[in-house]
């Protein structure tokens, strides 16, 4: 069974060589064949997808994404289709409305085939915190796909869909993209409307695409970007033409390399592959400059105060009163306690407690407020760095995919997996992970590029150039054997 990119399907549909329903059927067939082993999907809307695709069969493609199947992370609300955020507390919840990104993709003629697995409420780095199922890395089923958007990453990696959307709060798109050998883009905060994204940490969350190529990512980003009157934090910034600038190459591109970034925990193999990738870009005319991000060491600590603080408040609405799970009790308080005790998993509870503590009277200044100050310093570090470079290159994650169960009992080790991705969320900057090779063990490694605010264009062009230069095709994962 061949695996196709967005671009290939788009061209085939435009040439009338195929019909949307054929692509929907192919996608569903592949999900049927593989997902029992991968576990990428929480919900497959077979009937809905086929119906939507057949309706499009008679129409003329009027959008690059017309007739192309896709999947959404299950923290993106879809009217009439169950949306759980992989939490028991939203078991059976069917949203009465759709997320802005879902609406945009539907209007573009996209065909939604299903909702993908994630760490409960997007809290995690391995998708093991899902209340419903484990997702396996298509390159090695004993390994995690990364997280929290592990389902979307695995679905694209395994060729079940040509693209999928995820959300990235501290690396939840880029890290699973790195683990699963696909492209993952976290846009600038405010580039894509968050309306309909079940909030984890409102000031950090951002929706973005998983694709097989940087070019595909440009098409998807184009379709989902722009100001949304329903999201006050979505930016009024004009949306660039991401596709047309892809071929500008890397000549003269100044790539910042961070020498003082903590090397602790960096897998040597990952380090070598990333360095080789940077050298490849340099060989094609890019200029490598050293930059300093002096406050990076505090990024993880800062993140683990701000994100849980916001989460503790964002998750207060799951009280059993209006929707989702309710466990009856002897009194109102008892009902709250039982509902939330049974409804939330351990990692979610841990973060609610950390966040509640950080916001508590007497601790607010020492924790939340200080974290906000550090966030400002980190943002300023980037501003300074971007005076001398155009993108900053690092590994996406310090390690390749780890084994299922390996880190579940050690939250701190799990948190440190996001050490390279978190700073971009704190600064609101765009970041992309592009595959830069496989380890000896056959696990993918990602190169991360972080750019200036609203300069996704440069990131996509650099990633696209690298894909042409790297001299290898990412092999299809061995999941089919």
């Amino acid at each position, binding site marked *: 069974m061949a695996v196709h990119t967005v671009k290939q399907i788009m061209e085939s549909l435009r040439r009338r060589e195929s019909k949307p329903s054929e692509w929907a059927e192919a996608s569903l067939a592949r999900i049927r064949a593989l997902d029992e082993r991968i576990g990428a999907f929480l919900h497959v809307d077979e009937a809905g997808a086929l119906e939507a695709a057949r309706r499009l069969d008679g129409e003329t493609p009027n959008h690059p994404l017309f007739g192309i199947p896709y999947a959404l992370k299950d923290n993106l609300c879809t009217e009439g289709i169950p949306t759980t955020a992989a939490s028991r507390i939203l078991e059976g919840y069917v949203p*009465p409305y759709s997320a802005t990104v879902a609406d945009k993709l539907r209007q573009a003629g996209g065909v939604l085939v299903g909702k993908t697995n994630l760490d409960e409420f997007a809290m995690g780095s391995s998708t093991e915190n899902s209340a419903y199922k484990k997702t396996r890395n298509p390159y090695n089923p004993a390994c995690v796909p990364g997280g929290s958007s592990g389902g979307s990453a695995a679905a694209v990696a395994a060729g079940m869909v040509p693209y999928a959307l995820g959300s990235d709060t501290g690396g939840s798109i880029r890290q699973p993209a790195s683990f699963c050998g696909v492209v993952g883009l976290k846009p600038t905060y405010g580039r894509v409307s968050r309306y309909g994204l079940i*909030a984890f940490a409102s000031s950090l969350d951002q929706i973005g695409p998983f694709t097989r190529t940087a070019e595909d990512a440009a098409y998807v980003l184009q379709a989902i970007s722009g100001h949304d009157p329903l999201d006050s*934090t979505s930016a009024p910034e004009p949306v660039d033409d991401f596709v047309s600038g892809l071929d500008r190459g890397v000549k003269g591109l100044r790539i910042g390399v961070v020498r003082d970034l903590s090397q602790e925990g960096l897998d040597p193999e990952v380090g070598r592959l990333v360095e080789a990738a940077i050298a490849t870009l340099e060989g094609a005319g890019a200029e490598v400059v050293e930059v300093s991000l002096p406050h990076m060491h505090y990024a993880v600590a800062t993140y683990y105060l701000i994100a849980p603080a916001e989460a503790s408040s964002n998750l207060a*609405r799951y009280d059993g009163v209006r929707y989702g799970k309710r466990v009856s009790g002897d009194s109102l308080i008892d009902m709250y306690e039982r509902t939330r005790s049974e409804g939330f998993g351990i990692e979610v509870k841990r973060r609610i407690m950390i966040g509640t503590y950080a*916001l508590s009277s007497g601790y607010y200044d020492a924790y939340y407020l200080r974290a906000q100050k550090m966030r400002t310093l980190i943002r300023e570090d980037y501003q300074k760095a971007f005076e001398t470079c155009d993108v900053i290159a690092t590994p996406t994650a310090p390690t390749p995919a780890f084994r299922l169960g390996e880190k579940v009992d050690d939250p701190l080790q799990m948190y440190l997996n996001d050490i390279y991705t978190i700073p971009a969320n704190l600064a609101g900057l765009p970041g992309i992970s592009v595959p830069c090779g496989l380890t000896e063990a056959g696990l993918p490694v990602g190169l991360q590029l972080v750019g200036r605010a609203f300069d996704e264009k440069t990131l996509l062009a650099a990633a696209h150039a690298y894909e042409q230069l790297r001299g290898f095709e990412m092999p299809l994962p061995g999941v089919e054997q």
Partner: protein
Amino acid sequence: MTTQFETVIGLEVHVELKTKTKIFCGCSTQFGAPPNTNVCPVCLGHPGTLPVLNREAVELALKAALALNCRINQDCKFDRKNYFYPDLPKGYQISQYDQPIGEDGWVEIDVNGERKRIGIIRVHLEEDAGKSMHAPDGSHSLVDYNRTGVPLIEIVSKPDIRSPEEARLYLEAIRSIMQYCDVSDCRMEEGSLRCDANISLRPVGETKFGEKTELKNINSFRFVQKALEYEVQRQTEVLSSGGSVEQETRRFDEATQTTVSMRTKEEAHDYRYFPEPDLVRLQVDDAWLARVRDSLPELPLQKRDRYEREFNLPAYDAGVLTSDIGVATYFEAVVAAGADPKAASNWVMTDVLGYVNAQGLSIQEAPVSPAQLAGLIAEVNKGTISIKQARDVFKIMCETGKDAPTVIREHGFEQISDEGALAAIIDEVIANNPKSVQDYLNGKEKALGALVGQTMKATKGKANPAVVNKMILERIGK
């Protein structure tokens, strides 16, 4: 000897803003709709939904804050106030914590003829919660989310209020200002104006504040004063008997007319305020602020001073006429239609307000228009009818909606001022009452009244008393 205590009161007043839609979604704010019909995913707190600030709510809040003489924070923000309650769908209320839209203002009240200024600490914007209804047997509760997300401003006074009466006057002043600015209906019975009070006592001369209690959810102007009066008495008794007031929250119980404890300080909430990340900062540019400032109407006290100055009205009249914007508007229309201000004031305060209050109407619904009332006053001035007749004419006008001249004509109210028509009647009265004539001539002034009265009786009250008086004197004059 007994210690004399001074009462210290601060009020927190919640005012619902009169916007068409809610503060963070497009739902209607209409009062009285069937439960849970003015709701949407946003105000029900569905996962993934986001608030979008309603500019009209900001505009009304600005208006209110300016009318309360506040400094406007042109760059401010919203915060989350976190607590669990079923009528709060998100588990937090979006409010303003440390950067309210307005700060440091004041209102003036007249206490026993003296003008007193009550400081305003802050005016901030926030969203209202829903309404819980509990089954009497405690088996279940129902929640109506129609009110969830209706915009509110909270107005926090300084502890400048020194008596329950001042508290009521302050609250009435707030209501009056809000109504003048068309910011809110301020209907306490519909919950569009709500009041909490902080009250403490301290020995006269003491500068430190005493331990305070908070009175919650007092839902009428009368109860504000009553609840506080009870609390003054209760705290006085506690302190006088050597006890100490406990810092707690109490509520007014209408049935017993007392206050009862709701919770003590130990049970107080930690609201874990933090900046609302789903909203951007609220920026009010100079042009917007100037536009709102220019749109402010003349406020109650300014109007009151002007009535005294311009119309020569007594302070009492000016106060009554300006306490309600509807009454002031009506009064000004009567004067604009040509009526003498003092006469207009008397008619509006006594007859018009008397009638509409008895009928349970607002003054806008008065059946006699300002122009019609001016017409009635004109008839009295012309001498067509006496003031006593005018009261009867007014009643008929209220019932029929007809103009004064029509009622006077149809009901034969014309006053007889024609001397020719009165001469024979007066001559007869003088002839028939020689004793009264003699009494008057002997110096009993009162006897003249008796003769006038007889003439009035003979004309069924239609004779012009002034003309009658003059004619009798001409005939029997010394």
